[in-house]
């Protein structure tokens, strides 16, 4: 039963991994979301300043004496100062004519009031470029002034790097917290399973009652199935026992009837050969009923031995009760049953099985003892717990001692007489189930001895 089942991984690990994986993805998403948002905000900030700057430059444009003048306010560039000393580039055009600034700076085509923001390459650097225009109306003509203003993004990158670092720190913190939480949550969840497992493990082999303790709702289906399985098991175990009992009944009742007929007939028949036939018939009936009984008993014992029920019992009282019960049989044959024992022997085992085993041994002894003989029964715990049953008969046939032993060692009873052999087999099986053994011997002054050690 302790065979290692193949596992499909650990539920706890699976939970932890899933939760931590989820936390990691969440942390990453958080990181990128924050960074993306921060980028937008920072870019917006830069754009705002660039826009204000370019507007102030345009505002300073005027036509004086037919000539365009652009009196760039000192503040226009001053406001572009950044922590990282970003470089600035600008160009002023009148219509398509370059007026001043950096002639290589590319302009976007603009019209109207709108400012156009672009990220472009200038002198190998990515710069944020704003282009805006203003139409001046002179005496004779309308002219368009276009101003392009660009700024490098060192400060922006610095800010972004800082924000990224903070976002990463925040994400990592979030992740660490989530990981801890997920480990805790998984342990708690798996703890519920462990508790259920423990309560299943702690149960005795006969305890098939349903689990009543409250469990989390997710585990309810499992526990319900388990309870249903146990109910079915209990039912089927009960059915097995019922079946064996029923089978015994079915076999024995007609036998009892036939036997009664035979016996009644025997009372009325005087002719010796008829009597002999009837006697044989009764004997055959007894033999087969006993065999059937023992076969069924054997089935029952095998069934019980498979899930042995340990129970503290007093072995002396148990055997004594049996002896008392068998006393009428012994008396009937004018046999003496002698019972010797320690005061009390506490033993843990299945009382039904032990009693059955001992009963079979005493039955055998009663059967093979000559009239007015003695059967000695000894129950003692020294040197080990055992029950010894000795009769005053002829003993086991010495050449069969070993055969008998090997025969029931195999647990088979394919040959020879049905009755006694199976009784010994039952005793042997019971002894084995309790970690003991059955030894057969012949006494020095005759008589057979069976030693059931437990």
């Amino acid at each position, binding site marked *: 039963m302790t065979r290692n089942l193949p596992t499909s991984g650990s539920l706890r690990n699976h939970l932890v991994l899933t939760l931590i994986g989820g936390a990691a993805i969440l942390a990453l998403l958080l990181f990128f979301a924050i960074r993306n948002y921060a980028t937008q905000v920072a870019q917006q900030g830069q754009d705002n300043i660039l826009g204000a700057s370019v507007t102030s430059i345009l505002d300073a444009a005027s036509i004086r004496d037919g000539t365009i003048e652009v009196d760039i306010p000192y503040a226009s560039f001053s406001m572009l100062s950044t922590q990282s000393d970003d470089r600035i580039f600008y160009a002023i055009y009148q219509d398509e004519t370059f007026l001043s600034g950096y002639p290589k700076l590319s302009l976007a085509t603009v019209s109207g009031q709108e400012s156009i923001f672009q990220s472009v390459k200038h002198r190998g650097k990515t710069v944020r470029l704003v282009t805006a225009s203003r139409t001046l109306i002179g005496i004779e003509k309308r002219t368009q002034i276009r101003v392009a203003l660009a700024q490098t993004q060192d400060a922006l990158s610095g800010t972004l790097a800082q924000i990224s670092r903070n976002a990463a720190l925040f994400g990592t913190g979030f992740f660490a917290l989530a990981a801890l939480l997920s480990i805790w949550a998984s342990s708690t969840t798996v703890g519920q399973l462990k508790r259920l497992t423990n309560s299943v493990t702690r149960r005795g082999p006969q305890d098939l009652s349903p689990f009543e303790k409250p469990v989390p709702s997710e585990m309810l289906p499992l526990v319900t199935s388990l309870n249903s399985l146990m109910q079915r098991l209990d039912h089927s175990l009960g059915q097995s026992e019922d079946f064996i009992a029923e089978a015994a009944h079915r076999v024995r009742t007609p036998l009892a009837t036939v036997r009664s*007929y035979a016996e009644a007939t025997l009372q009325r028949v005087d002719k010796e050969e008829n009597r002999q036939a009837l006697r044989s018939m009764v004997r055959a009936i007894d033999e087969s009923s006993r065999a059937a009984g023992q076969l069924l008993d054997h089935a029952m*014992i095998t069934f019980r031995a498979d899930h042995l029920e340990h129970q503290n019992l007093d072995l002396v009282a148990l055997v004594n009760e049996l002896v008392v019960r068998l006393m009428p049989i012994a008396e009937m044959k004018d046999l003496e049953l002698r019972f010797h024992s320690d005061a009390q022997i506490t033993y843990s085992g299945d009382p039904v099985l032990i009693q059955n085993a001992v009963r079979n041994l005493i039955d055998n002894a009663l059967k093979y003892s000559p009239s007015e003989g003695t059967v000695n029964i000894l129950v003692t715990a020294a040197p080990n717990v055992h029950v010894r049953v000795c009769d005053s008969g002829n003993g086991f046939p010495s050449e069969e001692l070993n055969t008998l032993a090997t025969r029931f060692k195999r647990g088979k009873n394919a040959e020879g007489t049905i009755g006694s052999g199976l009784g010994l087999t039952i005793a042997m099986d019971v002894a084995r189930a309790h970690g003991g053994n059955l030894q057969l011997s012949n006494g020095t002054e005759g008589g057979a001895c069976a030693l059931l050690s437990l």
Partner: protein
Amino acid sequence: MKYLLIEDNQELADAISSRMRLDGHVIDHAAKLEDATAFVETGEYDLILLDIMLPDGDGRSFLKEHRASHLDTPVIILTARSQVLDRIDSLDLGADDYVTKPFDHAELEARCRAVLRRNAGKSQTVIVTGGVVFDPLAGHMAVHGQSLTLRNRELRLLELLINSPGQVFSKQKLSDRLFSYDDDVSENAIEVYIGRLRKHLENSDLKITTLRGLGYRLDHDT
């Protein structure tokens, strides 16, 4: 002794009844629990023989009710089920003993005797005849005040003869009563027990007469 037999199998019931009557007992037979309850309520019994599987219910429930109403009449259960389990059930429910079907009548008789002996004192069954005081339950007999204990087979032989004085019992009949079917005994074995009984009755007014070719008979020595 007055027995109540609760058994639904008519043939088996008849066989048990006739055998019990032979031993001088009075037998009432109930084929179902309903009848049995009626019998118990009206009459008083020394022993109840109870089958478990009955057409109108489980014998064990009858036993349970029986014990619950403080009737202490001893009960022997007749069961055809597995010995292993019924033993526990029956004895726990308050049965005094049980016999597994099919049973040897001698065994049933022995168990009845044992149970009755354990519950002795309730009814006196001592037989006094011809200077012999015979207590079949205790297995004692006394001849002119001299007491002795009989062995089981001696007891049963005497019980049979003393219950039917003057009746001739063939060797076979006596054999059938004394030995089990698996006891492989010759019919002459009965002579040993007849011999022993004669010895026990030596000083009494009872004697066992041998009728050659017919059997034995208990006579008052007048």
